[in-house]
């Protein structure tokens, strides 16, 4: 009973982690950069969604669940554009500057985004308008309750991830992305516009992150500005767990982390679940830095 219920919760949270982890993993793939700002872009998705829904609420005085759709699209586009802007301003000038400078720059962007959110929206918890998400649910035969919202969330996440996977595997741009993640110079020799591909990665990753932010906010109902850091770090752990740079790895890592965390919260102690996530990260990095699915041998220098 407890186990199944935590399993259901774990899969739901895991779906969120996977969506956000994709952003980390795609950027790491093409730039070998830990994009610390990704978590905060994701959080901005939640805040922009809130603003969008509130504007609609003023305009229409009443909202149905369908109001979410146009808002999601706008949030996705806005966050994606911010992502591209961040890459242009903070990462592109550092393309040749070694590995540490971009990481510090990314941390800097994360702090700017978080501070903006806190100063614009205030430090208090924000709540989404009521009645937008489907209520109800059903009970599984083995015990354990699944809410309709959980089903929607998981299905939407899987659809997005599936679409991304097909995009990367089947389209020309996707092929170019995979080429860039292997080697910039050779890709350029093959006629790939590397800067354009990186810009596209920074459209897709943050775009997905923005949507994930809104879904998370809808699912939990409320959030504050620490969402970006807490959730972002977890999603990053998920990306490492699956093997950073590896797209299916990010999905599996996210699911696994969600389930482990939910089981730990339910069966060990909710207070220590974050610690368990960090310990997993530390152990993975010490013993298998390439993650579960990573094939790349860890470079030592």
């Amino acid at each position, binding site marked *: 009973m407890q186990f199944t219920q935590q399993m259901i919760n774990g899969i739901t949270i895991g779906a969120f982690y996977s969506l956000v982890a994709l952003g980390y993993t795609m950027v790491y793939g093409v730039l070998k*950069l*830990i994009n610390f700002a990704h978590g905060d872009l994701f959080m901005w998705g939640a805040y922009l969604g809130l603003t969008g829904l509130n504007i609609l609420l003023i305009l229409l005085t009443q909202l149905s669940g369908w109001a979410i759709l146009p808002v999601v699209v706008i949030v996705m586009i806005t966050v994606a554009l911010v992502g591209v802007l961040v890459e242009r*301003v*903070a990462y592109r*000038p*550092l393309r040749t*500057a070694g*590995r*540490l*400078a*971009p*990481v*510090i*720059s990314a*941390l*800097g*962007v*994360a*702090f*700017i*985004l*978080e*501070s*903006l959110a*806190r*100063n614009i929206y205030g430090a208090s918890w924000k709540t989404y308008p009521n009645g937008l998400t489907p209520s109800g649910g059903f009970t599984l035969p083995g015990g354990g309750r699944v809410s309709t919202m959980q089903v929607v969330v998981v299905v939407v996440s899987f659809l997005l991830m599936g679409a991304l996977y097909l995009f990367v595997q089947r389209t020309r741009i996707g092929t170019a992305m995979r080429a860039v993640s292997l080697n910039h110079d050779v890709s350029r020799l093959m006629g790939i516009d590397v800067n354009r591909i990186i810009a596209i990665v920074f459209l897709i990753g943050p775009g997905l992150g923005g949507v994930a932010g809104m879904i998370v906010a809808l699912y939990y109902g409320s959030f504050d500005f620490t969402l970006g*850091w807490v959730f972002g*770090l977890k999603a*990053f*752990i998920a990306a*490492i767990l699956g093997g950073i740079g590896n797209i299916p790895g990010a999905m599996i890592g996210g699911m696994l982390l969600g389930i482990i965390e939910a089981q730990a919260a339910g069966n060990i102690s909710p*207070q*220590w679940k*974050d*610690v368990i996530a*960090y*310990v997993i*990260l*530390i152990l993975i*990095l*010490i013993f298998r*830095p390439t993650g579960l699915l990573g094939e790349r041998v*860890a*470079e*030592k*220098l």
Partner: protein
Amino acid sequence: MTSFEGLLTRLRKVDSLYWQIGFVLVTILLPLPLGDYHRTVLWRTGIYAILGLSLNIIVGYSGLFQLGHAAFYALGAYTSALLNLHFGIPLLLTLPASVIVAAFFGYLVSRPILHLRGDYLCIVTIAFGEVVRLALVNNIFGLTGGANGLSGIDRPSLFGQALRAPIYHYYLMLIFLLITIVCVRRLENSRLGRAWMYVREDETAAEAMGIDTTRVKLLAFIIGSGWAGLAGSLYTGKLTVISPDLSKFLESVIMFCIVVLGGTGSIPGVFVGTLGMVTLPELSRSLRDWRDAWLGITMVVMMVARPEGLWPSRRVQLEIRGEREEALSST
């Protein structure tokens, strides 16, 4: 930038004895005309300078990216507080214990992760820092008092006199700050210091030259962490109340920024960094509200425009801006 570079060159040429005398005189006289508030600001500046200098050993000299330094600061503070609360040991006597505990944890934490490369090391240290903070928040072993932390700690006393006014704490801090500067300078030019920089520049070559890189890196972590523990103990003495906020990620980032922005591996750079990251936000209210953004903007701008920091050590500057080598060596 050239005029700035010229100023820097001129500053570097000032005979170091004048520097030393000037620094000591200024730091002794500076708080005298100020009120308690500004004296406390100066005290905070000094504490962060000590933390910056300690992190400079790890990040600056050895090139190991430690983003969880605040954990050791907190460990030092909690060690002092617990020894004082449970055993009634006078605060100044708990100081060595704080150093030892922080250094020991520095050893425990860094031992398994030394082989990791730059950005991976960064992540692991963040995770360790968070684990320490959460352990403190979760009231581990019922010792740490949870999210509220510990209170009612004695003030440090000297010659039977409890130190209360900020000015006493300032001078107490100053003694340790001056000791720290002397030690760090000696370390920088020692055999170990040169080994650290060799490891930073090229680990493989260092190893080929017979440097035991593991030992050298471990020593950097142990010494740096222990020193942060000292700062933590001083903090406990002044505030008499401590909370897990000491080990917040933000604190680690502030320390990291102090080192990177001032100029990695440079002692004057640490002071420049502390002024920018700690003193200015303390003095200006609007900067305090936007402190995270200020941190962030400086990080991005510095990385893009001047990755070697504002007052870099000559060695790092040469390494980053190789083409200027001639201009620098002719001075």
